[in-house]
């Protein structure tokens, strides 16, 4: 089973991905191909948060 340290590490990487995707989305509002694909990445990141990040503080 997963240790708390593994989960913390996963959560850290999810935050990193989210930060990068948010930045990419912000800089691409005049670039539909990047903007829409980043929006989809962020939707997937949300699923990672539901599966890992949300559990971290309970």
């Amino acid at each position, binding site marked *: 089973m997963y240790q708390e340290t593994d989960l913390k590490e996963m959560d850290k990487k999810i935050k990193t991905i989210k930060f990068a995707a948010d930045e990419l989305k912000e800089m691409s509002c005049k670039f539909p191909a990047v903007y829409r694909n980043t929006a989809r990445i962020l939707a997937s990141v949300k*699923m990672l948060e539901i*599966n890992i990040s949300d559990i971290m503080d309970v």
Partner: protein
Amino acid sequence: MNQDQRYWNPVLETLPQEKLKKLQLKKFKRIFKWAYDNSKFHRGIYEKAGIKPDDIQSFEDISHVPKVEKSMMRDIQRKDPFPYGDALCVSLEDVTEFRQTSGTTGQPVYQADTWQDWEWWAESWSYVLWSQGYRPTDRVFIPFGYNIFVAFWAGHYGSEKIGCEVVPGGVLDTKARILKIQELKATAMMATPTYILGMAETAKKKMGIDPASLSINKITCAGEPGASIPSTKKRIEEAWGAKVYDHVGATEIGAWSYECEEQPGGLHVNEGLFLVEIEDVETGEIVNEPGRRGKMIITALDRQAQPCIRFDSKDIIEWAPEQCSCGRTYRLIKGGVIGRADDITKVKGVLLAPSAIEEVVREIDGLGEEFEVVVDKVGDIDQITLNVELMPGMEKQRESTEGRLKDQLRLKTNLGYNIIFHEYGILPRYEVKARRFKDLRKKH
């Protein structure tokens, strides 16, 4: 990836109940605030009840949050923004999916989803399918007419997310679907129990193919309670030589429950993604102890565009007393969804659930898969007519079959029935939700 892994999410699905409760409370507060801040409809009903986001600190506080009924959603949809109304929490440009309810209980309700919601739909179906043994090695055939309803679209995307190969059986007719399953050696499929039984019948009687000889080893049923009714499950499993699992979800809620590989006689509530409360129909009290039936009030804890917060689903359920041997800590509801509050009706003063009739019909040999129940009044007295089909070659057993049927119905439902036998193939066949129960008393 290790395909032997038993759980889709080994942490969340085995989280101790006290931690699950903390998670649900945290997520309820979050979705409540989201709806309060972004939907005129939600803010309106909460302000009227005098509840603000910071007021929610416990499950007791949650129980005071106003419920939302389907009829309210229908009214909302006459307002802007078209066509969803003011329950919408995002701008129309963020909506990527339109679906509507099947309209079984009245005017269909329109449902908006963002792409994030759609990912969430696929995610919640991934929990369902993984628990039922779907793995990337599976070839999943979906014998369903994909259309405006959410049914099986999300199952399709959930299968893809897991890594299965998906074969969309869309507009093919039943024979073509059976041939495609045979040709491609599909290993799994999902559809309504009625249709799955109808497919088996077509394969056997019209094509000379024994469905059990095909390669299907698991079937997920949804849309009707059949796969949680033991006699119906048994018929499907025997016909296809496959394990049959139930799943219950709804357009306006999401994929909230699943039967796992252990087939524990009930469904797990996905308590990481949903909060299920059971409300006593008479007193309105929240029921936490097993064995007491009530109405399901459900919250989808992560749904964004059109939130589902304390939705009065009208589904009748009860908590199971035991934990599942699969190791999941998610609680079980015993026997799946037992019925709907608006389907369970009083006949001659006795509460009648249509699923109880199905259970009897499906366990009697010599009867076809289809049946129809009509409740009417003769003078001032309620009368129930049960239309059934006799299988070919069973004519000589008609009298004994009728006797068994009446005895079992009396035993299981405490009511008497007028039985009408029909020739095999006469009663309507359904692909989507079967409508086998007709109450004509209101028409008088």
